[in-house]
């Protein structure tokens, strides 16, 4: 029986013995973390601070009104009702109505503004996290599931949001009532007050005991939500494959596991967190009993009156209620901190650094030099992806990258666009190492047509315009025509204003590629990177856009990955890659006459 309770759903509790017997220094480190997290949130309050003071003042007012109401009622009873003389009672009643109105209005206003402040803070937190994400290097995203990151943007921030809405006012008003009642109690009977105050150290100890557990559990809970989110996002966006392979049972099973983790973490977090108000209640009731018992005995020898005991039991109740509220708030604050910590941990990731040594406005010519460049993906176990690659491409030249899949062709392009930085060697553009060039300057000159065309959930023209935000409608149509996309766009239900849905099931893969080519056409770059840009396009259409592509490549330094000889033939330089190394370089003619690897590749292809 006990075992079943200790291990609900047949799982071991999450907390291990070590978690609970952590050394002191660990604890202070944790306190440090909370402090810095709270401080970071406080910083986000920023210009709202003045308004926050107004809110606090209103809390003061509403608390005062809340006390004034019962006082006036007592006054009415004592002064008018008991003596049965109603003269003047109307005026006091009017005053009472004023107090009630004041109370309600100040209550509403404080919440009205507090919600505004809280949501403004949340808004700032969200947009900062987002713009920070924009500045993180590509390698950061390679390591993470999309859904997991999305969870930080929604689920984690939402916990902070709901806490911020209410906790601040609650905490402040609790402290206010607490001090108020303590003062009144002290004046009535210092001894009984001390007895009541006994519960404070007890409360401290028990809250320590609980938060030691909930702190970790809430973190686990948020982590479990993140992982679940990651799994959901991946399987839903890959739904077609799930269906094609009838893997519904498998993903359901995986989902069950992840969901189970969340249930377990959530269960323990909520159970322990649920102890807090109960412990408070107990201490409260206990002190109630002590006050009654000890007070009763004291009353026997006449050192306190019955009236004082009655008042005290009532006050000790009033005294512990705000404490109770505080304790409850403490708990939601804890879960919010767990969420906030996850958000800030992303904010602490190092951004792509830009050393501003290069003139941003400078127009590049487009001479590209790779000088003994080596590169390996972070955390990769596969050794060098690019090893000791050197070559020079002159201004306006077209370079074709060929080689087996996985030879490192795409990586060369990604290095040039500085999605990753080379581990060894140097890449220079117009004699300036690109590592010293602000990414903005660099990328402004580059248009990259990626292997997997991506379209946003937006209209066709917005998708094309992504290459040049201020492009006119004519330019958009011009680019679409150049990419041979105009024809099919015109057939779409709303033409250029057709909204492409996320999955893009409305248009084919080849059409997506046409649109991404149009996007590159409109960008008018100095350097053009085409990574399998036409792989899903039929050859007839390809021939039609070939001309546009050639026009696009003319006068620009271009790098092309393609398997079609047609494209390679026209290149000024062919680079043959093999397992990360550059094995041959030259024009197609040279390579064929050298009878090296490229020549063999060609002849094998004809088999």
């Amino acid at each position: 029986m006990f075992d079943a309770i200790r291990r609900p759903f047949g799982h071991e509790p999450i907390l291990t013995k070590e978690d609970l017997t952590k050394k002191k220094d660990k604890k202070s480190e944790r306190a440090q973390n909370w402090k810095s997290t709270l401080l970071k949130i406080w910083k986000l309050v920023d210009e709202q601070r003045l308004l926050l003071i107004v809110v606090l003042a209103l809390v003061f007012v509403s608390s005062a009104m809340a006390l004034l109401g019962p006082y006036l009622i007592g006054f009415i009873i004592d002064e008018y009702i008991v003596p049965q003389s109603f003269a003047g009672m109307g005026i006091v009643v009017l005053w009472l109505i004023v107090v009630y109105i004041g109370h309600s209005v100040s209550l509403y206003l404080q919440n009205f503004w507090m919600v505004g402040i809280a949501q403004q803070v949340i808004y700032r937190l969200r947009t900062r996290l987002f713009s920070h994400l924009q500045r993180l290097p590509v390698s950061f995203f390679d390591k993470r599931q999309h859904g997991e990151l999305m969870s930080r943007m929604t689920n984690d921030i939402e916990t902070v949001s709901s806490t911020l809405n209410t906790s601040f006012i609650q905490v402040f008003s609790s402290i206010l009532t607490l001090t108020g009642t303590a003062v009144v109690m002290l004046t009535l009977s210092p001894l009984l007050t001390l007895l009541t105050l006994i519960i404070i150290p007890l409360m401290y100890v028990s809250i320590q005991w609980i938060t030691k557990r909930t702190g970790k559990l809430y973190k686990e809970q948020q982590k479990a939500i993140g992982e679940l989110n990651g799994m959901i996002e991946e399987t839903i966006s890959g739904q077609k494959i799930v269906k094609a392979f009838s893997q519904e049972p498998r993903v359901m099973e995986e989902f069950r596991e992840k969901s189970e983790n969340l249930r377990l973490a959530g269960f323990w977090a909520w159970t322990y967190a649920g102890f807090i108000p109960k412990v408070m209640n107990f201490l409260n009731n206990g002190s109630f009993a002590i006050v009654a018992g000890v007070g009763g005995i004291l009353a026997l020898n006449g050192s306190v009156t019955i009236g004082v005991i009655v008042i005290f039991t009532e006050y000790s109740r009033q005294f512990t209620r705000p404490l109770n509220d505080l304790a409850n708030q403490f708990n939601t604050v804890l879960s919010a901190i767990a969420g906030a910590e996850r958000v800030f941990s992303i904010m602490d990731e190092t951004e792509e650094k830009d050393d501003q040594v290069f003139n941003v406005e400078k127009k590049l010519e487009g001479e590209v030099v790779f000088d003994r460049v080596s590169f390996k993906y972070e955390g990769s176990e596969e050794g060098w992806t690019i090893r000791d690659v050197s070559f020079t491409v002159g201004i306006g030249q077209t370079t074709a990258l060929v080689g087996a899949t996985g030879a490192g062709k795409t990586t060369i392009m990604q290095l040039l666009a500085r999605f990753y930085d080379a581990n060894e060697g140097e890449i220079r553009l117009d004699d300036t190492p690109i590592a010293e060039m602000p990414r903005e300057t660099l990328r402004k000159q580059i248009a990259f047509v990626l292997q997997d065309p991506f379209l946003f959930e937006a209209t066709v023209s917005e998708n094309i315009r992504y290459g040049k935000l201020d492009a006119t409608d004519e330019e958009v149509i011009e680019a679409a025509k150049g990419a041979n996309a105009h024809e099919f766009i015109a057939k779409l239900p709303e033409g250029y204003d057709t909204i492409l849905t996320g999955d893009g099931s409305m248009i084919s893969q080849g059409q997506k590629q046409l649109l991404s080519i149009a996007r590159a056409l409109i960008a008018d770059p100095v350097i053009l990177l085409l990574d399998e840009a036409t792989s899903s396009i039929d050859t007839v259409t390809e021939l039609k856009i070939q001309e546009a592509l050639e026009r696009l490549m003319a006068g620009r330094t271009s790098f092309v990955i393609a398997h079609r000889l047609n494209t390679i033939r026209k290149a000024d330089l062919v680079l043959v890659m093999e397992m990360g190394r550059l094995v041959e370089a030259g024009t197609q003619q040279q390579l064929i006459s050298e009878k090296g690897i490229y020549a063999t590749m060609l002849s094998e292809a004809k088999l």
Partner: protein
Amino acid sequence: MKTVFSYAKPYKFYIVIALILMLLELVVELMQPLVIASIIDKGIVEKDQDVIIQLGIVLMALSVIAFISGIVNSYFAAHASQSFSFDLRQAVYGRIQSFSLAMFNKFPASGLITRLTSDVTLVQQVLYMGLRIMLRAPLLVVGSMIMAFVVNPKLALYLVVVFPFLLAFLYIMVKKGVTYFGFVQKRLDRVNRIVQENLQAVRLIKAYLRGKYETNRFSEVAGDLKFDTVKAFRIMEIILPILLFGMNLSLLAVLWFGAFEIRAGGAQIGELVAIVNYAMRMTGAFSMFSFIIMIFARAKASSERLEEVLLAEDGHEQEDVGEDQPIRRGEVRFDNVSFTYPGTEEPVLKNISFRLQPNEKLAIMGATGSGKTTLLQLLPRFYDATDGVVSLHGRDVSEWSLRELRKTIGIVPQQSLLFTGTISNNLSWGKDEVIQDELADAAIKAQIHETVERFPKGYYTRVGQKGVNLSGGQKQRLSIARALVRNPSILVLDDSTSALDVKTEGALWEELEQEQATMLVVTQKIRTAMRADRILLLEEGRISSYGTHEQLMTKSELYRQIAMSQQEEEVDEYV
């Protein structure tokens, strides 16, 4: 809300226990004032120290009982609410898995993600709160009300007068809250969507330097979310002040009319004081009440969103319905098939008819957007033909059970989508139980075995989301291997060798030709098409030509054109 909360039924036991414990706690707490009264009356007044100590101990014992029931309640309430949300998530996710593809246009991924996490959490919270405090406030109100009536019905009546108004007000507010919190959740969907898009398109955004642009786009959406959240909360915050004001006014009414009543001799002062006391207690409970109303409204909005998914009537696939015997012969027939995507008007396929004997190989060619992929999607019933019949092994595909149908077909989609996990995990998607040898076998055929072996961890190399750490060609070959693992009698390849170099591609086709499977292959390359028994040429959704390479060369102008476009290359190669 009914459907959503029906998932709490299996946990009735936990719920009932939690409720009983909550009531026990409440009762014990209510007994305390009585005990105190006896301490005063029997102990202090009668100067009996033993009674005081005894009753003091009783008081202590009562608090221990309250404490224990509170702690145990915590356990049961957490258990019930977490298990409830676990089952709810399971049900919603299961429902989503049974959605047909068309449903995903109605429910985009981002919206489903919000539902499965944020919305479920909000609903779960309301159950948890319900088992812990929710009944407390209403009980306190009702209890005080009854006590007030016991004391003096006439005075208590003044207290009740405002109740209908307050209830009507609460009803309206809940309705409003549901609407506005529904908006908030919808905004959250949009936030999710933009973040998802940005994560998927990291490279594109960086390449075009659109970081700031995207941040602005996001700020707008986040701003909308802020606006709607603030609006929803501000509306809900009206509840408490109004409730308090209403209660306070009725309190005043009691006082005012009570005063005259006393003069007329209809009431005692003590009675008035008692009723005023009860009224104040009710007022205290009201602040909790407004909080409850708020989370209730929020949960209701969320449960409506969940029910949209749970109760979606159409658009479900039923795996087990239909003929379940194994499909052994991959005989494929299209009879006058036409197809229009749901929600559009223009048909994508028009009157397509052809027939494939088992183990025959068909190449499908045609311009970009001519309907090649759509045609392939009708076979595993991702979509159902609008007109005409697609049949397999002599039976309409809709008569086969989906599981059997899809088990028979090995699909290699255009975009080779891989999942987070090891290579071995990804390959074994093809089949439920596989032995390592089978994986290696399929990988050898797909020309990826050697590459995988070269990775330090071999088949246990981890693949990132969507296969980020692999090259395009590696992904394509893994995706082909995945389809081969299940030994399909029908193999569907949707232009899935585009990123392969010519040599690897050649070797791959050599292997594929050995496969005992009916093959439908979308390709751009004449060279690949020539390997097929028959070629189907599509033009704007119609069959433009159908036959062998030689036949098409003579009868189809379009085919000759395609051949010409590639012929040039062939000539070039000899230069």
